[in-house]
């Protein structure tokens, strides 16, 4: 049995999204900047996609800029807010220690350019509070950037509360909603969000396309200069088939948020309950305030990568917290941020479901994971030391 349980990394495209893409690949190949029929047809499609996305986010179409994905949107949002801040001599930014690297590495670059960044401590439950944000805001704060939902542990931050505080304090608020969009009800106006990043491949849309919402009046800095596409804020011939497909996938996802969440939640809860029976295991992050499909656990005495590879042999596609292939041997910065010690953080497993998963697949995972954990513990010198009392368990 093959089980894809790595939807937080990327999702397969929905039939709707594939058909929409294919339709436009074949029929709407014109360049929207061209005056002729083929171009104008593409321009109209683009307008429609922008309207759809805007409608589901609660903003104006012209507040949406299409990008090549979530990373680009994150980079552009943060750079733009920083440039705006710099002009007013405001060079302080507030973020958290468990953001995605697209945010963290952009902040690192700004730190080199003289910006100061406060990384809020994340509580052990994987949450930060609006009060933490409020306390950290200074007169020279130009931006608060806090992710909507964490990609590794799935916890959802109090975005509306943070937005309200930022609005009151007149500080720009960006949220990386890459994991949230299409999965949670978002309304940028009501939640007082100024800048927000989304990425299509996290909600059964195509890869290589995303969007940046920028509230009217928030002037964007170009990452990519050139033609006058996207109000002159993002050059490059528009990828109409992908943009249309993203809009279709987003509409489909948003129209079915509650229904999908209900289905996925049941499966996820069965998994958490079942896997929690493995001794010396622990759920990462709050049990309730989390995405329906996403959870991560740590298992004491074993290491994540080998767990994934053995699970893969059982047909289960999962992920660990650690960026094994990224050239770094450090454990997940997210798990460290919520206070897991290094040796525990190494033994993490993330399972992220979508509405395409089935109960049979959950049964399979519930069988495979304990077997794999056992197998690895049986060859682990750490586990032996724990079992034989030469070492204290960290996870009780």
């Amino acid at each position, binding site marked *: 049995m093959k089980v894809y349980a790595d939807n937080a990394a990327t999702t397969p495209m929905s039939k709707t999204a594939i058909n929409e893409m294919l339709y436009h690949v074949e029929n709407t190949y014109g360049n929207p900047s061209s005056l002729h029929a083929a171009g104008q047809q593409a321009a109209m499609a683009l307008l429609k996609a922008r309207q759809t996305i805007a409608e589901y986010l609660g903003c104006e179409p012209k507040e949406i800029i299409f990008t090549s994905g979530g990373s680009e949107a994150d980079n552009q949002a943060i750079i733009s807010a920083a440039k705006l801040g710099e002009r007013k001599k405001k060079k302080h930014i507030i973020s958290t220690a468990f953001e995605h690297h697209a945010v963290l590495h952009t902040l690192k670059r700004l730190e080199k350019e003289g910006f100061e960044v406060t990384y809020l401590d994340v509580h052990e439950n994987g949450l930060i509070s609006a009060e933490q944000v409020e306390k950290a805001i200074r007169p020279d704060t130009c931006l608060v950037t806090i992710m909507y939902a964490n990609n590794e542990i799935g916890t959802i931050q109090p975005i509306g509360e943070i937005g309200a505080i930022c609005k009151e304090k007149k500080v720009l608020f960006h949220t990386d909603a890459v994991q949230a969009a299409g999965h949670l009800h978002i309304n940028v106006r009501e939640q007082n969000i100024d800048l927000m990043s989304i990425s299509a491949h996290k909600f059964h849309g195509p890869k290589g396309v995303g969007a940046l919402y920028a509230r009217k009046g928030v002037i964007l800095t170009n990452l990519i200069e050139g033609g006058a596409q996207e109000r002159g804020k993002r050059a490059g011939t528009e990828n109409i088939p992908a943009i249309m497909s993203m809009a279709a996938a987003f509409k489909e996802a948003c129209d079915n948020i509650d229904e999908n969440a209900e289905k996925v939640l049941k499966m996820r809860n069965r998994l958490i309950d079942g896997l929690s029976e493995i001794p010396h295991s622990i759920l990462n992050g709050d049990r309730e305030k989390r995405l329906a499909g996403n959870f991560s656990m740590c298992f004491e*005495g*074993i*290491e*994540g*990568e*080998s767990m994934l*590879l053995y699970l893969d*042999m059982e047909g289960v596609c999962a992920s660990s917290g*650690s960026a*094994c*292939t990224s*050239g*770094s*041997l*450090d*454990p997940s910065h997210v798990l460290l941020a919520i206070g897991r*010690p*290094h*040796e525990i953080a*190494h033994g993490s497993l993330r399972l992220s479901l979508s509405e395409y998963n089935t109960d049979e697949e959950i049964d399979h995972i519930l069988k495979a994971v304990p077997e794999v954990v056992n197998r690895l513990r*049986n*060859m*682990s*010198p*750490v*586990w*032996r030391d724990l079992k034989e009392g030469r070492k204290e368990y960290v996870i009780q």
Partner: protein
Amino acid sequence: MLYSEKVMDHFRNPRNVGIIENADGVGEVGNAKCGDIMKIYLKIEEDVITDVKFETFGCGSAIASSSMATEMIMGKPVSEALTLSNKAVAEALDGLPPVKMHCSVLAEEAVKVAVRDYYDKNGIEYDASLFPNCESCDHCSL
């Protein structure tokens, strides 16, 4: 693929997993903070390794490297086991990804530390410079 077929084979079916009660030499290297610990148990008769087992906490290439190293020293004289290099382990596995080369280093070191333990236990003299010095370990960014 991240790993060669050889690595995957040793990972899927690791040879010589387990422990040896009252082993003649035991070596443990790495630490859990880094995400890799290897422990090698040796049974030695007349300076020949007659049995070897390993336990590993670590990634796929750590498990495969330990497995391969045990195969490579099984039945060999202790002096020959001491010449096992991490490169030889990696080559026997048809290569490791650059970021995973340290796993083969751990395997080499675990064997050496187990041999040193055997020397120590038996009062055999040796050149200390041939053995790894944990303080020089740079596997962690801690």
